[in-house]
């Protein structure tokens, strides 16, 4: 049989994965860019988004599109609130010390994971997609929902871009990122900006989690891979750089989709993790030019 359909399929799958990855990684990158801290609990916020979507689907009767729409709004809001709380209660008190923040967010990630295990349970659970329409290609049918994922991700990233460039909040963020002390002196409420950024970063992960659930399943350990992949994207793209992160997400999402057609997933993971460690060692500014440094 011809290889072209395989490649097309792999590319489509890669694009879907790249979209989700782009959202998740941008959340991590934003937090790092503005606050100079690494949030290890980021994958857990993604997982909570997915679990939230499942919860909405179980609680809200009627057409799956309704519960999905609710989940897409409510789950990120709740996750954002949770993240803001964590920021206030913990990160602010350790003064965003970079090392202590990593250790603390590891703690947060264990707590979220285990609480989910105790309530949601150890099983993976599926959620119906909001619509079922299949797009016909000459060789195979492809779920229109997957195109929807790509669309939502692109729209959200475009919005984020505009917000960062043109809104007052974006200005505050950029000012705080540029120089924390000066921002403080200019009366910018740095503490609140930080909470907002941390919450916003978590919300992006949660949106990604909601989007991905009809495609895969919700599980309390599902945050691991997105966290690792986001790390890879953020590091390869240059820490804190938004264009670099987007470029890296597309590159890695696509190549991962293609690679997993030909190689075992474990081997692919070994190779990509090793690559990222070496990028950090030899080219800490990332592969796409110079951005922030750790």
């Amino acid at each position, binding site marked *: 049989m011809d290889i072209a359909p395989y490649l097309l399929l792999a590319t489509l799958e890669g694009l879907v994965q790249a979209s989700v990855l782009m959202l998740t990684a941008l959340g991590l990158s934003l937090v790092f860019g503005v606050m100079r801290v690494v949030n290890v609990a980021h994958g857990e916020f993604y997982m909570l988004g997915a679990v939230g979507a499942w919860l909405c689907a179980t609680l809200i009767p009627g057409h799956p599109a309704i519960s999905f729409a609710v989940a897409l709004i409510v789950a990120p809001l709740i996750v954002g609130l949770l993240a803001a709380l964590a920021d206030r209660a913990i990160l602010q008190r*350790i003064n965003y010390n970079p*090392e202590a923040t990593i250790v603390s967010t590891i703690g947060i990630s264990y*707590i979220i994971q285990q609480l989910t295990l105790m309530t949601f349970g150890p099983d993976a659970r599926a959620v119906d997609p909001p619509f079922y329409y299949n797009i016909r290609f000459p060789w195979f049918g492809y779920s229109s929902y997957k195109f929807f994922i790509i669309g939502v991700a692109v729209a959200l990233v475009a919005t984020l871009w505009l917000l960062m460039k043109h809104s007052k909040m974006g200005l505050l963020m950029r000012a705080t990122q540029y120089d924390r002390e000066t921002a403080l002196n200019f009366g910018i409420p740095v503490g609140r900006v930080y909470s907002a950024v941390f919450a916003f970063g978590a919300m992006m992960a949660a949106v990604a989690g909601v989007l991905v659930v009809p495609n895969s399943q919700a599980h309390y350990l599902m945050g691991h891979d997105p966290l690792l992949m986001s790390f890879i994207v953020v590091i390869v793209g240059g820490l804190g750089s938004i264009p670099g992160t987007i470029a890296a997400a597309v590159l890695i999402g696509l190549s991962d989709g293609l690679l997993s057609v030909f190689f075992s997933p474990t081997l692919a*993971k070994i190779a990509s993790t090793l690559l990222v460690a070496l990028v*950090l060692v030899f080219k800490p500014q990332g592969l796409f030019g110079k951005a922030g440094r*750790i």
Partner: protein
Amino acid sequence: MTIPNKKLFALCLVVLALLFMAQFVLSNYLVLALTRILILAIFAMGYNMLMGYTGLLSLGHAMFFAAGLYAAGLANYYGGVSLPIAFVIGILGGGVLAFVIGLLALRTQTVSFMIVTLMFAQVAYLLTLYFSNVTGGDQGLTLPTASRSFSLFGLAVDLTSPMVRFNIALTLFAVVLIGLFAVTQGPLGRLFVAVRENINRTEMLGFDTYRIRLLAFTISGAISGLAGALYGLMFGFIGSSFAEFRSSIEVLLFTLVGGPGTLLGPLVGTGVMTMLIDRLSGMTSAYLIVVGVLLIVINLWFPKGILGTIRDRWVPWLK
């Protein structure tokens, strides 16, 4: 040769004596528990040398423990190498891996260093899974019955006896403790602390801080490998769960609880934490939640750990 910090040295001897006496008082179950604590405390002491004294926070030390475990265990399982030699191979495995990883990872600092060590450890863990036809992967390998005893200098040693295991663990614990006493309380330890306190100043006093950090990293890895080899050979089992991220976090937690940068802190932290985790995991499967809460609580209110707090308040020589 004069002994620095004599009070601390005396305290170490007292602690060792008390541990030795413990086997005559405690039940078999508790002796077994204490054996595990001693081995994990060796791991934590190796970690503490790097994190506590030299100020390098690694998130990947499970890979060195696992390197020792696998180097020793596989040498015995496939090569039929006798236990004492397998043990030495395990120490070398941890040390050599640490030297190589250190060469790379020490080019980075603070947050990058944490992430790089985490990533390398993740690679190591995934490798144990990928080569599961050799390593046994998640299921692990049980060492053959022949490996449950060995003879050293004509002395037959039976590893199925809890008392024998305890005394081997205690002996090695004592060797590592006294060795680390010599390292940390002497001129070399002064340099480790100098690197932790102010790396630029140390460089400008004429020291190649990269080499100092590499030495600390390698010693730390070799001690972690020693602990891993000991664990695998004594209990006759090697498995990839020891290489998981969780092991790296646990050794960090042991060190944080006991007091980073104190010689006896790792023993205290490991003792307290393993007892606590054992209790809890009997009650709930979600004992990791306690690990999570503790990581946060210690960071917020108790950053010096148990012995570190005692040192700062009352006993300055406890370092």
